[in-house]
């Protein structure tokens, strides 16, 4: 029996078409695209074609796409690469709900003497725009705001914010790892300077990502040691990964409209079904401005890791914002920043769908989850219950 995989914001299944596209570059055309001989050199054309495929999904020019090892590298390269190139900028503005791949570099920069400002969110996970406006007044800043939140799926209005940030003299990086392929993105209309994307979140394999760098944006490379990617990212190209990412972007571009409609319908059915069958549960995050594939639900009185283990026993893969499941003792910084009560944070789970999620997956989950919630609540000392006679 194959797993019911509802953890697609963690990683996605590589699409069979993607695997088929990349396989020849492992088996047959394994040459180095930098080589002078035809055997290696012929690979270059395919790398450039993949760059075009990525650019097309974003509305970018192919020359603005730099291949990297993934989302974390792209985030680090954008933040540190820009600040190294522009020493006059001493302020970094980000949000409290960013992925650690952005938050940690920002806090690192703070330790190095940069002024760092973290913008808060409201109870629905929406950016406090008045805080951003105030922060932008402090002078030229590098701003890093995510397009979509990995835990709640809540979208920041990057289209609306980008022109305001630019007008205030800011430079904008957006971590769009969760958004690319799930919501339309067009950098020819939205003036972002840097944009991060990751292959394995959109049905390519792990170990490949890209950074969009708007033409003319100052950038000092993070990794030195070669001429690749026009000196913006050294190291022999991950050719199979690049081919895979190109194919994945092409598939996303062709199918996004149809797929996101289908995913949203499945997600809504799942969410409504859970709310109807599990009392004392709640949705975390703005239900209107959200990715079509994500739901974050809290079950009061019980703890997320315990839910995940029971779901796993039922062959359903999900994730949780609870402290215990993370290995730290601090529960989700995203839900805490939203002011979600502790009890709801500890009992939160995230279900994230993909193009491979089926109606049956949703049926099975709707059958298993209420049973699991009831089983754990029977153990909980906090469930309000009428006084019962001893066993």
């Amino acid at each position: 029996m194959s797993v019911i995989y509802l953890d697609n914001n963690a990683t996605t299944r590589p699409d069979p078409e993607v695997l088929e596209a990349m396989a020849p570059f492992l088996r047959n055309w394994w040459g180095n695209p930098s080589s002078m001989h035809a055997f290696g050199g012929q690979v270059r054309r395919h790398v450039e074609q993949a760059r075009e495929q990525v650019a097309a999904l974003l509305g970018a020019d192919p020359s603005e796409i730099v291949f990297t090892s993934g989302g974390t590298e792209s985030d680090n390269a954008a933040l540190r690469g820009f600040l190294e190139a522009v020493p006059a900028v001493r302020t970094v503005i980000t949000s409290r709900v960013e992925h650690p791949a952005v938050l940690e570099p920002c806090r690192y920069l703070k330790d190095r003497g940069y002024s760092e400002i973290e913008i808060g969110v409201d109870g629905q996970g929406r950016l406090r725009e008045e805080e951003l406006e105030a922060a932008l007044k402090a002078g030229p800043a590098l701003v890093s705001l995510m397009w979509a939140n990995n835990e709640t799926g809540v979208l920041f209005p990057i289209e609306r914010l980008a022109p305001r940030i630019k007008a205030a003299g800011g430079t904008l990086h957006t971590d769009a790892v969760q958004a690319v392929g799930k919501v339309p993105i067009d950098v020819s209309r939205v003036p972002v300077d840097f944009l991060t994307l990751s292959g394995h979140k959109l049905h390519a394999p792990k170990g490949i990502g890209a950074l969009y760098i708007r033409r003319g944006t100052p950038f000092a490379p993070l990794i030195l040691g070669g001429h690749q990617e026009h000196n913006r990212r050294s190291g022999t190209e991950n050719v199979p990964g690049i081919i895979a990412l190109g194919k994945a972007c092409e598939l996303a571009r062709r199918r996004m409209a149809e797929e996101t409609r289908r995913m949203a319908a499945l997600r809504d059915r799942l969410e409504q079904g859970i709310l109807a069958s599990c009392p004392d549960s709640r949705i975390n995050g703005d239900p209107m401005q959200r990715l079509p594939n994500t739901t974050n639900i809290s079950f009061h009185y019980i703890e997320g890791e315990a839910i995940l283990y029971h779901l796993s026993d039922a062959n359903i893969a999900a994730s949780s914002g609870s402290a215990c499941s993370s290995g730290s003792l601090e529960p989700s910084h995203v839900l805490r920043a939203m002011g979600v009560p502790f009890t709801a944070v500890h009992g939160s789970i995230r279900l994230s769908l993909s193009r491979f999620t089926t109606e049956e997956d949703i049926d099975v989950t709707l059958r298993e989850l209420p049973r699991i919630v009831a089983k754990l609540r029977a153990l909980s000392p906090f469930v309000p219950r009428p006084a019962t006679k001893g066993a």
Partner: protein
Amino acid sequence: MWEYSDKVLDHFRNPRNVGVIENADGVGEVGSLACGDALKLTFKLGPDGRIADAKFQTFGCASAIASSSALTEMIKGMTIEEARRVTNQDIADYLGGLPEQKMHCSVMGREALEAAIENYLTGKRTKRILEGKVICTCFGVTEEEIRRVAQENHLTTVEQVTHYTKAGGGCGRCKEDIARILESLKPPVESPPTSPGRMTTVKKIRMIEEVIEREIRPKLRKDGGDIELVDVEGDTVYIALRGMCANCQMAEFTLREVVEKPLREFVSPSLQVREAGS
């Protein structure tokens, strides 16, 4: 996924003794929703003075549920005196071990048991009151608790204290305080005995025996273990660990911290302790 033992998973999937005993003889409640785990333990004594029934309710992760379930199974049939001696390590051992990051679940079990026994003995039914100075304000952990858990479990690093008590696992501001507490738990460094020139072997052995008797054996006995001095060759002291210590996973740690350290301190800094036969 955590590396949970089969026994942890079994007690999580099939928890024993779930519920609340009406008219219980002892009730203990620890933890809170904010902390992420909580346990309510109730027990009833039989006519023979032994615990006849025990039940639990737990809010928490898989290992918190398993630790609670294991605790109720362990204490059934025990006298109050026996139950008082149950340590968090006993709970972890019963479950075939817990990941270190999850040891606080076993500590929560021991605390609930203590609260329930306290309730039985004094009739007091209060939620655990924080006595003494609160060190970790995120999880409400006092200096006294940190000292106790650190001593009982031979903890030496701040990280270990966090795994066992949660203290320091929130904002992290109390980590320096925890380090200070750990420092104060180290045995006082007494000035070495004034060098009497070269020590005779006979005198050395006598001093080693004295230190074992005074410093080492009582500590090991507390954990159900013992020690035997086998031989002394030059500066190498051969000993054998007995009882609970013999196959303990902490044996290497015990050898260094509990045996070698005081011997170096009170006899000679050049001593080396080896397990006989190893």
